[in-house]
């Protein structure tokens, strides 16, 4: 029935930081989680022998077998729905949605079922399901392959929503998400899959082997100041952290000192960190790839304004995609927030 491979938990843990791509870090994180807990299953389309269309699950099928790395039928509602059922039976499914644009057939299962089960059962049932979604643009793809649907999940109570911007966070957060008893939407900025960075693997493995999942959840829910600065707070997450850091460099050359906050978690939002920064700088710009209108930036703007009104020198400005469907990839760089557009907002907020 089961062909679980038992290894000593942590057998893959390296002592010193190693260089990994973000895709590699997620892969390593999945592996560590599967070794730690044989209730962890991977489910999705083409995640088995192929290793997923982005190769994020590469090698896991070989090492853990087809009963733990499951190539499912081509039906997203079915994947999430059966993951819920497996969750009720004590399994922890990590679902891969092949591309952002294909999560919508599963929207009902996620919104009306997955998000609410813990609540409606008075806490008797928990659904530790993780839904991994490669998201956002800049890979030159055709339609439906570059969506940023985060706001649609952030509005729904019962879901957690996180998105790493570095290999280190990817490695840590995928494990923390899997250990979390709540359903987590795990958004992976696909254009950054191949970025390399140092990854220290010890700490989170120790945390989770020690069963500190509550601490892990709290940690996963915190924003990170990716660059300190005193003139403007630039709030970003996932794919735009990279852009924000570049803009900060350009601004520095113009003597504008930009603090970059990487939200990491979109549900919950770490508002205290953003507000603290806003109170220091008095100026806030939010940047995301999703359309500006009703995007995460609207909530950040509203919350920061409520809590730091008299500290603000200028209104919170937002830079995002426009209120239009994703255009042909030949013009996606104009549709998405470019370095120029973010810098323009920095200039506007400073000169306000």
């Amino acid at each position: 029935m089961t062909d679980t491979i038992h290894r000593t938990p942590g057998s893959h843990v390296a002592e010193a930081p190693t260089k990994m791509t973000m895709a590699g870090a997620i892969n390593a994180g999945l592996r560590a989680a599967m070794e730690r807990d044989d209730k962890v299953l991977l489910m999705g389309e083409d995640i088995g022998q192929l290793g997923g269309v982005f190769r994020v699950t590469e090698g896991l099928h070989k090492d853990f077998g087809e009963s733990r790395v499951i190539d499912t039928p081509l039906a997203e509602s079915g994947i999430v729905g059966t993951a819920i059922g497996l969750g009720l039976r004590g399994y922890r499914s990590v679902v891969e949605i092949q591309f952002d644009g294909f999560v919508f057939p599963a929207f009902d299962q996620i919104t009306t079922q997955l998000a609410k089960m813990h609540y409606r059962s008075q806490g008797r049932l928990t659904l530790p399901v993780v839904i991994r979604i490669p998201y956002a643009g800049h890979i030159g793809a055709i339609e439906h392959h570059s969506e940023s649907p985060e706001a649609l999940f952030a509005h729904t109570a019962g879901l957690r929503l996180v998105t790493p911007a570095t290999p280190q966070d990817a490695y840590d957060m995928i494990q923390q998400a899997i250990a979390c008893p709540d359903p987590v939407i795990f958004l992976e900025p696909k254009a950054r899959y191949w970025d390399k960075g140092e990854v220290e693997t010890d700490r989170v493995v120790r945390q989770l082997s020690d069963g500190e999942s509550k601490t892990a959840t709290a940690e996963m829910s915190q924003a990170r100041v990716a660059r300190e600065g005193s003139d403007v707070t630039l709030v970003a997450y996932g794919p735009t952290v990279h852009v924000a850091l570049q803009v900060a460099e350009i601004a520095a050359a113009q003597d504008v000192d930009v603090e970059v906050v990487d939200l990491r978690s979109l549900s919950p939002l770490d508002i205290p960190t953003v507000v603290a920064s806003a109170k220091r700088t008095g100026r806030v710009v939010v940047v995301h790839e999703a359309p500006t209108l009703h995007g995460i930036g609207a909530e950040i703007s509203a919350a920061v304004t409520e809590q730091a009104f008299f500290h603000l020198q200028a209104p919170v400005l937002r830079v995002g995609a426009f209120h239009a469907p994703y255009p042909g990839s030949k013009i996606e760089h104009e549709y998405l927030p470019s370095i120029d557009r973010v810098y323009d907002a920095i200039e506007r907020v400073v000169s306000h």
Partner: protein
Amino acid sequence: MAGGPLDTEGLVTLLDHHGRRQSDERFDDLASRLAPSDLRDMYRAMVVTRAFDDAAMALQRQGELGLWVQSLGQEGIQAGSGKALRASDYVFPSYREHVVAYQRGLDLPQMLRLFRGLEHGPWDPSEIGFHLYTLVIGAHTLHATGYAMGMDRDGRVGSGTEDDGAVICYLGDGATSQGDFNEALTFAAVTNAPIVFLIQNNQWAISEPTTRQSRIPLVHRADGFGIPSMRVDGNDPIAGYAVTSWALEHARSGNGPVLIEALTYRMGAHTSSDDPTKYRERAQEDYWRERDPIARLESYLTEIGEFPEEFVAEIEAEGKEMAERARTLVRSWPAPPATSMFDHVYAHPHAAVETEREWFERYESSFTDTEAAR
């Protein structure tokens, strides 16, 4: 309509509608497992649940419940299939399977907490092997399938022992149109999951007759997925027991999914909000009232001399007690505290919930303070 979804072709019937025992070679053996006490168990489940059902309906009419959904008329297949279940099996109901809930050990009046708007899930599913009701039509069929995949994975099928189990998933005729149900059939088929899908075709999805959902009997849906199936007279508890036993045995033995269509009739309204006179004929209702599953089993029990007066008195008393308790309990339940709305949104703390809860508590206490200050 010949060949249409309500055609009676292939229906397994072991008790005809006069309560006379019919023979069916394929199922006689299974039916014969039912001792008289088992038959009375089924009868009791039907009668007590109906008494409860009547009481709940009355409570709704008195404004004590927001809504009530009757099982009226469908007790036959529910009692039969419920009787076929073991403790090791797991039930995914839709929202009308009160008889099965009773058989699984749910104290039925507790269920009214849901319909009174106090909470969404008033029982512990794992304690009684009976999942919460699901109101989004078809969604639970996938949960049931996933759960069955998990049972398989846990080695809970094919051992030949009492520990073997299977999932039974109830759904309506209308639910068969949902994509989710069809995806469930695909997942169940390719994973060979130990699950029995039981369609209670009560001929109506609110005001729509089954002909709006299909042009052939729903039992055939299984053929397209390579899933074995059977069609049963849904007002015959004995046939319901036998066919479901066969199906569960198939699933528990590791042979994979089965689909059952039980042809029955929704004798009442869709829910307490519905008015069937708008869309169906009195004559049809009368026709089916004559085929009441309770009356049918009663005739049979009488005929075989297994319907003693004490038994009748006993279950009548149980029904009355249940109804009475329902009335008393419902009126006794206080509304939950408003702050309970913040409980169990997440299992681990979540800043948005914590912040709003704190705000709300301060806000609430500001009224108390104001009042206190007066």
